[in-house]
């Protein structure tokens, strides 16, 4: 499969400010993503996950190295890399339907078929009956489904997700995780998913990448060949979880680390 994303030698240093030392947010990151793959980038907060995603999204620029999307250097944000933010980032002054219309207009994809596509997408995400509601009136789970719906509507080949379910309660999060896997299986979009939860990474991804901070580097890159639908309570799942936690524990300087994701 061809690489949709090709990152090599990516380095980002935030300059010293207010008397604090410069932050090596990313140091020589190499990462190749195959078209249609589902990758989870995992690591403790501050290890540069968002920085990495922001460079791929075109919100931020690297200091060194290259970031190629389909062989072309990223030069700014664009609808080919649809982003799902932890803070939802829906437009509160637009109804559910208006948010969708705006997304399609912005992406230059608002044509005669757009209303039908919007309806189909909202129905798929269980939001059609709420099309006249404002985001304020939606629950957190519904908001995030709308954020995903608008990326589906503009048909981004790559989906960037920065801890998208981090603000949701455990039950809603579990449902949305299952939904996301279904969606990925249907659409085979390339997903770059950021999380600080081992469980989430293992449940969702085909490949898990683990980063550690100061400087932000990749310490583990592993394929997850658990069969789907995955069950977080199986011994296989726990074995994998233990393996990953054991491998990254030295870099976390936590002695006797056991399989408790709260450490991560």
């Amino acid at each position, binding site marked *: 499969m061809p690489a949709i994303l090709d990152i090599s030698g990516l380095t980002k240093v935030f300059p010293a400010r207010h008397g604090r030392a410069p932050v090596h947010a990313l140091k020589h990151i190499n990462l190749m993503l195959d078209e249609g793959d589902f990758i989870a980038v995992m690591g403790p907060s501050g290890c540069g996950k968002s920085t990495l995603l922001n460079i791929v*999204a075109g919100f931020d620029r690297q200091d060194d190295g290259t970031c190629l999307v389909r062989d072309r250097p990223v030069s700014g944000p664009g609808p080919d890399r649809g982003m799902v933010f932890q803070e939802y980032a829906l437009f509160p002054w637009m109804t559910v339907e208006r948010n969708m219309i705006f997304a399609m207009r912005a992406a230059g994809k608002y044509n005669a078929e757009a209303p039908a596509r919007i309806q189909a997408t909202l129905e798929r995400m269980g939001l059609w009956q709420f099309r006249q509601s404002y985001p304020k009136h939606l629950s957190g789970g519904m908001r995030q489904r709308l954020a995903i719906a608008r990326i589906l509507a503009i048909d981004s080949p790559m989906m960037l997700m920065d801890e998208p379910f981090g603000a949701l309660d455990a039950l809603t999060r579990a449902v949305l995780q299952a*939904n996301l896997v279904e969606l990925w299986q249907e659409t085979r979009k390339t997903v770059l998913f950021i999380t600080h939860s081992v469980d989430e990474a293992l449940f969702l991804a085909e490949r898990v990448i683990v980063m550690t901070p100061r400087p932000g580097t990749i310490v583990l890159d592993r394929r997850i060949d658990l069969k789907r639908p995955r069950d977080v309570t199986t011994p296989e799942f726990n074995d994998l979880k233990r393996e990953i936690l054991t491998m990254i524990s030295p870099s976390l300087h936590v002695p006797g680390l056991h399989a408790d994701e709260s450490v991560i």
Partner: protein
Amino acid sequence: MVEQVRVLDGHTMAEPARQKPAAAAGAILVPVLRIGVPVALLVLWEIAVRAGIIPARFFPAPSALFAEIWADLLSGKLVVDTLSSLNRLVWGLSIGVVLGVAFGMAMALWRQVDAALGVTVHVLRAIPPITWIGFSILWFGLGNRPAIFLIVLGTVFPMLLNTYAGVKQVDVIYLRAARNLGAHGFLLFRDVVLAAALPSILTGLRVSLGLAWILMVVGELIAVPAGLGDTLMRAQDYDQTDRMLAYMILIGFYGYLSDLLLAAVSHRLLRWQRGIEG
């Protein structure tokens, strides 16, 4: 999958605020007070004048004011005055709003424009608009234009400052999301920057509307041979205290009505800000 989702997280939707019993009592008392107290004041005032406690020559009774308004309404004078004043108000306010929003946007969006105009704007806005009356007559003579000029001067700065603050406060997450979806140019400006700044712009508009009424009357008192302010000035010259006070209160009433209208429009435009019952 869809049904399951709805059951699982549909219940977390914000519920409408329940009314407490005390609030229900207030629901009756509040409208009664709103109408009752002004009516009671009018009645007391009328009685005080009729009983000779307040001399009618210094402070006419409400009945005299109503009679005055009624007579001017029948003669058509009131309508002519009102339309003539409204014409200046609308022109002055429109120009002030367009200029204020345009400059506020430009200064908020481009740092160079901000740097170039910031000091000038802040000095000019600190000059009381009424002090421009001399120059407004010198430059424009008598008539509509000096009054419109005063209104523009009075309204442009509140509009500018509120637009500026509104744009500066736009959360960067909205800009990121919009640009991520591919928005740029006019779409980004209208649907994101302008929409996000709208609450602040509407606040500026409400302040400006109040100032516009004041400056319209000031302009007419001095520089315009027509309108409500002019009638007020003549009534003063001829010692017609009934008409003077009647028109003063009328102007207050118009100002109040226009504010109510604008508040209703704002309420509608900003429905997205309110809770589920809004």
